[in-house]
């Protein structure tokens, strides 16, 4: 099977701008992407640089992007890539702005943020334990495989918020925070939740785009863990009253009152006095008939049913 590869090339020490090498190659469909990276180095240009180590999808070092899709090179079969994208494939590093050389990126920001959530168990263990500090199987299930994260960075570099907000800790760090907040042995649950509750760096800045879930080669579903962290922040009484938490709570209040959302009131409830900054925008919308006045606010039919269900099904108080 023939493929045409466009391969990203850049050396931070010598190049001002990156370029792409175009390479045509016959491949065995059973090859994985890493086989192709090896052949580029061995058969086309020995200076081509990339990271690889375990060759079994557990060290996370060989993450690259193929046609924009983050992937572990040692795990991803070429036949699947060709089925998704055809025979013209572009191979790039997971983050072009962090490149040191070709496929090798500087992951310093990733690791710094990862450490912020204290990625280790905080348990009170006797200095001379007589038995292992084990977790019952039913409790282990609540971790939802979050301990399978290999820190490859695929989710982190796929996240659009990471690209525009340097403070944002990102999906890998959140996923790891959940790994321990869901562990019954951990004593630092509130401390971790307080770290991920901070606006700007924490879970409230997630745009809910599902890029992280799509990118994760271990199918760990980072955004699912982000949602769980949101839930735990409320359950553990860590949530502070701010625009983000009031926005979440406002949905319940609005549904209880109208069935459907009162969008205008939701913004006012979430923002508090800060709602004034939306006045120019609101005026523009009003002129175009995009704002419903309170006296015309539509309500769901059979609203009593909704009110009753909210009353008997609510599991969280705030």
């Amino acid at each position: 099977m023939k493929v045409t590869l466009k391969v990203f090339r850049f050396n931070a020490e010598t190049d001002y701008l990156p370029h792409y090498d175009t390479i045509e190659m016959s491949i065995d469909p059973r090859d994985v992407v890493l086989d192709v990276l090896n052949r580029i180095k061995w058969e086309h240009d020995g200076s081509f640089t990339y990271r690889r180590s375990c060759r079994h999808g557990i060290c996370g070092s060989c993450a690259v992007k193929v046609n924009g899709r983050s992937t572990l090179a040692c795990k991803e079969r070429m036949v699947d890539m060709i089925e998704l994208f055809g025979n013209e494939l572009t191979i790039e590093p997971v983050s072009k702005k962090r490149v040191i050389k070709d496929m090798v990126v500087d992951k310093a920001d990733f690791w710094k943020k990862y450490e912020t959530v204290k990625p280790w168990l905080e348990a009170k263990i006797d200095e001379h334990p007589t038995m292992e500090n084990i977790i019952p199987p039913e409790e282990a299930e609540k971790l939802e495989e979050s301990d399978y994260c290999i820190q490859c960075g695929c989710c982190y570099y796929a996240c659009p918020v990471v690209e525009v907000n340097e403070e944002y800790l990102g999906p890998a760090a959140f996923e790891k925070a959940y790994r321990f907040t869901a562990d019954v042995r951990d004593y630092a649950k509130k401390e971790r939740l307080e770290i991920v509750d901070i606006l700007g760096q924490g879970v409230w800045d997630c745009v809910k785009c599902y890029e992280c879930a799509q990118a994760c080669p271990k199918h760990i579903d980072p955004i699912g863990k982000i949602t769980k962290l949101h839930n735990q922040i409320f359950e553990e009484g860590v949530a502070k009253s701010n625009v983000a938490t009031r926005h979440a709570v406002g949905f319940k209040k609005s549904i209880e009152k109208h069935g459907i959302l009162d969008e205008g009131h939701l913004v006012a409830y979430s923002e508090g006095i800060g709602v004034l900054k939306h006045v120019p925008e609101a005026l523009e919308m009003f002129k175009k008939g995009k704002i419903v006045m309170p006296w015309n606010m539509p309500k769901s039919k059979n609203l009593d049913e909704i009110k009753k269900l909210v009353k008997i099904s609510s599991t969280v108080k705030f």
Partner: protein
Amino acid sequence: MSKLRYALYTGCTARESTPELLKSTLAVAKKLDIELVLLDEASCCGASHLQDFDDFLSLVLNARNICYAEKHGLDMVTICNTCQLNTSMTKLRLDENPELKAKVNEKLEEVGLVYQGTSNVRHFLYALIEDYGLNNLRKKVVKPLSELNIAPFYGCHNIRPSELHHHFNRSKENPYNPTSLDELIEALEGNSVDYEHKNKCCGFHVDLQAPKTSNMLTGTAIADALDNNADVMVTPCPLCHLNLDVKQKAAMKTLGRDLPYPMPVLHLPQLIGLALGCTPEELGLKHHVTEVPV
């Protein structure tokens, strides 16, 4: 082809800040002889925010919405990507977990409802493509859009997570290279614009708490469409629409880019309606903050 009938879950936005979406959906359905039964009993889907606060309550409310489609014996169609995500995610979780379904039904029975799992839940876009068919749609075009370069903006929740959407749609959209909107544009004889950000996030869900992030993402998408000579953008998601249309000036300001011309942003049914010969009034084109020259 027998007459298509669906239960329409409008979501909240089409009843309030994007009235033109509901108007144009109904106009297009009428032109195509598709019957839409409005689910006036439905509540908000929670938009992924109620889910952050109270997951179980969101499951009960979304299951209740599906119950009403089931009562009509119809499949549900949605016209908002986020409604689609939350409703289909609820359905999948309940259908795959009998224990959870029983817990939810215990609450629903208190109001005389039972979630059974008999209605499929699809976005109107995929119902059109899969049931009506692009070839049939092509035959209905009376005003081809051949003069227009149209940039499709897919919106996250219609394409990711792909496993969820592959479960409900026969069209197996590739989230890294989605094609449904492009194919639909071609069926309307428009020129679909290929650009990098067509499958990226608009940032709507952090508009309030992180406006800079939201504006950067929205602005980047508009700038990318502009740089690829788009005359107009189209989206199947009213939340993306609100960011791209209402917040267009603010987004470009945050991005530090001047707009050579305002970028009109159409809802999916508005674009279809234009090609089918609906009037601007029927499509509610006057409701856009970024004006649509017609």
